């Protein structure tokens, strides 16, 4: 893959739920090694976009190209080994499992499942398990939660649970990480740490696509920002340009003199 060639490219993606058009003709290209922000008011279609990229939803039309392959009808679980991992807007951890086991599930596609070895209790199963645990612990160390690895996920604070999801996504060893509102519900210091973590990831060569409401966080960390409103892309560019874009200001704050207030 040549430099500058997009790692992820959406071509004319549309998604309709009955009469509601959640996404309409979205074109998007993500440059490898960058942090790409997606913003937009509530209901703009950001999470739908993620669900389409990860395969949980099938678009009505359009094509997704990831690292040169068209994703087409590939089911979600087969997109992970291609290098795609995500977190969720509303935390979706395995709550009654401990933190380490949560992260180990992220490793699923990278370790074999030696069925016979497991049943007969032979060496390979334990060796693979130890290897997987090493990687999982390394991911937990990255988010600073190694000390919590034996705790049940449900017993962690909200911010910590977000970090565990983050570690679980890292364990999938992705090329592209999709973060759905990672900073929501975090306090100021947790946000600062998250910011640091995201830029570290970029420095390590990961590509990050980020949905976020926290404008300050986005402006600080993103290389490119795409703005969605009512399922359409209304602006795209470097943070400074997007912030001053009239359509963006209109979408967030309303147009001056417009009397449609309350209808959107």
């Amino acid at each position, binding site marked *: 893959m040549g430099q500058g060639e997009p790692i992820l490219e959406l071509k004319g993606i549309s998604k309709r739920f009955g009469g509601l058009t959640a996404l309409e003709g979205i074109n998007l290209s993500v440059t490898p090694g960058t942090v790409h922000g997606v913003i937009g008011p509530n209901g703009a279609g950001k999470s739908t976009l993620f669900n389409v990229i*990860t395969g*949980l939803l099938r678009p009505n039309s359009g094509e997704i190209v990831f690292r040169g392959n068209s994703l087409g009808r590939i*089911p*979600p*679980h*087969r997109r*992970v*080994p291609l290098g795609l*991992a*995500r977190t*969720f807007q509303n935390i*979706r*951890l*395995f*709550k*009654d*499992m401990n933190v380490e*086991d949560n992260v*180990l*599930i*992220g490793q*699923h*596609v990278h*370790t074999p*499942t030696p*069925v016979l070895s*497991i*049943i007969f*209790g032979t060496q390979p*199963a334990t060796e*693979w*398990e130890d290897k*997987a645990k090493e990687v999982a612990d390394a991911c937990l160390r990255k988010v600073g939660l190694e000390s919590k690895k034996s705790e049940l996920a449900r017993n962690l604070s909200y911010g910590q649970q977000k970090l565990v999801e983050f570690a*679980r*996504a890292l364990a*999938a060893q992705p090329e592209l990480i999709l973060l759905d509102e990672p900073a929501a519900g975090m306090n100021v210091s947790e946000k600062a740490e998250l910011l640091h973590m995201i830029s570290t990831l970029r420095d390590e060569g990961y590509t990050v696509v980020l949905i976020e409401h926290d404008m300050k966080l986005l402006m600080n960390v993103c290389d490119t920002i795409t703005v969605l409103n009512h399922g359409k892309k209304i602006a795209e560019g470097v943070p400074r340009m997007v912030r001053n874009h009239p359509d963006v200001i209109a979408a967030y704050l309303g147009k001056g003199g417009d009397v449609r207030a309350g209808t959107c």
Partner: protein
Amino acid sequence: MKSHKLTSSLKGLHKWVLIAVVLSIPFVVTNLYYLHLINLIGIYSLVVIGLNILSGYTGQVSMGQAGFFAVGTYTSALLMMKLQAPFWVATVMAAIVAAIFGVVIAIPALRLTGPYLVMATVGFGEIIRLVLVNWVPVTKGAAGLTGIPAPSFFGFTVFSERSFFYLIYAVVALGILVAVRISRSKIGRTFMAIREDELAAESMGVPTNIYKVAAFAIGAAYAGVAGSIFGSFSGVASPDGFTFDDSVGFLCMSVIGGNRSIFGALIGSITLTLLSELLRFMQSYRLIVYGAILLLTAIFMPQGLSGLGPILREFLSRRKRDKKSYDDVQCSQRKGR
């Protein structure tokens, strides 16, 4: 260091004592009726281990476990009676055929969750029972199969309650061993992830459909093995033994014993089998008692009886700790004087 070695060897001793106790049961319990009950407990616990893997670990509630149990019983009995297959071949085949049934029911069940899945499994159990009643040329209909041969190994026939005890509990031990290994492995972890959040598991790369089918196959195979032993153990099999009530009974054992634990299956089988004997005088009214117990379990101890272990252990260690700190205070006060 030395004391650590001692405690670990003591722990090893624990295991041997347990094995010795189990092995001596048939010599201590001389009442054949009680021994018969103990043997039934073993057979039921195998069924419930399978159910725990399916329902407790993977979260796929099944109320058709008696159906798999029936498939195992009839497969093995027919193979032994019509083809003179040896018991162990019949048992392996019973496991395989039951597992195939598990896969077949799993495929439509993949898209179902919660109450819809329960309804589908209830339907499956009923279909099996109706086939057994109506496929007269093979299953002998409602009259059932009689004269199912006893297991024999190398010319030694397992016939008495005592010899059945050893056969059954050898299989139970093996069943527990395999189930524990599965549950503590990557497979068990993946099962649990599906129970906790199927969509998240799918998004992390877990082929959830394959794992759900596997869970059904494992759950059914355990019931199949249990069914094979059950047929030879009782010598007869009729559709009456594999009704919806029996499926509910297995589910009760699973929930009351604790369906997220392999040993819970054993605890649940013991509790419910003994309870049903104690309540025999109430006849069909005992279902009321079951219902009440199930309800209370669901409300007050969702982890079942096996869930009480950790709670009890913590309680005891806290008391010990409290007592110790109390003693320390007393001691320091005395010193202070």
